[in-house]
C-alpha cells in the first residue's frame, strides 16, 4: 500500500536544480533573442544635450578623439561672419590663422558667392574640442555638431568620454541608426 512515492529531500534538490537550469537557459535564450532583434549597439552623443565642455577632446581613450565635428549643411547659413569659424571680434573676416577659432585649423572656408561661404571639416585635423560647435550654436544656426565617428570609435564597454560628460549626452544607440543629428523643425523659428 506504499505505492505513493515519498517526495524526499534529494528529489526536492534534483527538481530545484532542473528548474534552475531551465530558468537559466530560458534567460540566456531571451537575452540572445533580444540582442539579435536589437542588433549591435554603439555609443553616440546627443547634440541637443551637448554643452561643448571640451572633454570629448581630452577624455577619449584614443590618441585623437573619435568625436569629430560634423557639418549639417541644410542648417548652415553660409555666413561670412561665421561664429564657428572666426574668433570673436576678429579684425578681418579672412582665413588668417589668428582669426580662426579652431585650434588645429580643421575648418576650410570656401567662397561660394558674395557674401556666402561654405565651411568644410577636415576630419583628420579635428580633435573634437567643440569650440566651433559652441560658436556656431551661440551665434549661428547650430549647423556644426559633435558626433562620434564610428570608423574611429573602438566602442569600449564603458565609454571614457561618457563617464566624463557633465551633460549626460552619451548613450548607446542602435548601430543601424548610429548618428543623432539635430535639425530645424519645419516652420519654427
Amino acid at each position, binding site marked *: 500500500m506504499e505505492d505513493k512515492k515519498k517526495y524526499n529531500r534529494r528529489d526536492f534538490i534534483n527538481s530545484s536544480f532542473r528548474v534552475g537550469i531551465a530558468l537559466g537557459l530560458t534567460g540566456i535564450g531571451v537575452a540572445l533573442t533580444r540582442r539579435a532583434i536589437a542588433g549591435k549597439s554603439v555609443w553616440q552623443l546627443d547634440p*541637443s544635450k551637448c554643452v561643448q565642455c571640451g572633454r570629448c577632446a581630452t577624455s577619449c581613450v584614443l590618441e585623437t578623439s573619435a568625436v569629430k565635428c560634423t557639418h549639417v549643411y541644410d542648417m548652415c547659413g*553660409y555666413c561670412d*561672419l561665421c561664429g564657428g569659424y572666426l574668433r570673436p571680434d576678429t579684425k578681418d573676416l579672412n582665413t588668417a590663422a589668428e582669426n580662426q577659432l579652431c585650434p588645429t585649423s580643421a575648418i576650410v572656408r570656401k567662397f561660394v558667392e558674395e557674401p556666402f561661404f561654405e565651411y568644410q571639416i577636415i576630419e583628420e585635423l579635428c580633435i573634437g574640442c*567643440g*569650440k566651433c560647435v559652441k560658436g556656431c550654436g*551661440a551665434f*549661428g*544656426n547650430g549647423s556644426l555638431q559633435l558626433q562620434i565617428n564610428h570608423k574611429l570609435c573602438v566602442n569600449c564597454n564603458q565609454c571614457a568620454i561618457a563617464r566624463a560628460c557633465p551633460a549626460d549626452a552619451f548613450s548607446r544607440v542602435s548601430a543601424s541608426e548610429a548618428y543623432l543629428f539635430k535639425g530645424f523643425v519645419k516652420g*519654427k523659428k
Partner: protein
Amino acid sequence: MKQKLIIGLSLLFLLVVIFLIGRDLFTNRENNQGNPTEYNLEKLRKIDSSLICYREVRHINPSLGVVHALAIDSSSNIYIAGDNEVQVFNKSLQKVNTLKLDSSANCIAISGDILYAGIGNHVEVYSTKSGKQTNWKSYNSKGYITSIAVNETNVYVADAENRLVFRYDPDGKLITVIGKKDKSKGIDGFIVPSLYFDVALSPDNELWIVNPGKHELINFTENGGFRTSWGVASMQPNGFAGCCNPIHFCILPNGKFVTSEKGLDRIKLHDQSGKFECIVASLSDPNTQALNNCSIGARIHDLAADSKGIIYVLDASSKLVRIFEKK
C-alpha cells in the same frame, strides 16, 4: 647617527611620495583648472552694469503654452500671440479679450480694430470685434512671414524664406516687392541666414528693414528705394554679434531704435542715427545657456514700444512679456 639621518630622510621622502599619490587619487584638479579646450563665452556675455539704462518694472503672464509674437495698438493695448489665439491686455495689464485664430501666428500687427497675422506663407486678417475677415494670397508657397508693419495706407510684410518685403494696400493688393536681387540696379538683396527678418515703421512712417546677414538696418522709401542704413558687426555693445543680428527691433516715439540679438541675448537702445546709447536689458544668465546653445530659437521673440516709449519684450523661455522703463 648617519644611518638614523638616512632613515629619517627616507621616511620623509616616502611620506611626500604617499601624499602626492594620495592627492592625485583623491582630488579632482581638472575641475579646478577648467578645461583648456573649452570655448568660454561668459566673458562675451558679461555686460557692464553701468551701461544698463532701463529697468524691468512689471511683466504680463498670459498663461500661454507658447508665445510667438507681440504687438501694441495706438491705445497701448497689448496683443500677445500664442498657439491659435491672441490675448489682449489693456494698459493696466488686465486681460480684456481673446481672439481665436485658425492657426498659430508667427507675427502680428494691429491697425485700428484690424489685426494682421503672419501665418506660414500668408497673411490672415481678423477684426478684433467680429473675428476672421479674409486670407491674403501668398506670394508663393515656400514663403515664411516673420514680421508685419502697418500704417493707414500700407501693410509691409517681411518674408524670411523669400528674403523679400512686400508692400500691400489694406485690402491685400500687392503693390511693391522690396529687396529683389538686381545687380544692374546694385541691389544685393537681403541676407537672411535664419528665420529672423524684421520690419518696422517709424513714427514718421519711414520704412526700416533689418538685413541680418549684414548686421544693418536699412531705411527704404515706400517704393523700395534705398535711403540710408546703419549698423556694424561686433561683439561689443555698439555692434551686432554673430552671423545674423539684430533679430527684432522696434522704434520709439522719439525715433530711437530698440534692437534685440540672439547669441548674446541683449536688448539695446540706439539713437535716431543708429549710434549705440545704452543697454535696455541683458537676458543672459546661466540658467538659459542650454537654450542659447540650441540657437535654433532665441529667447527674445519680439519687441514693441507704446506711445510713451515704454518697451515690451516677449521672453519666449519664460513665456512672459517683460516691461521696461527708463531708469
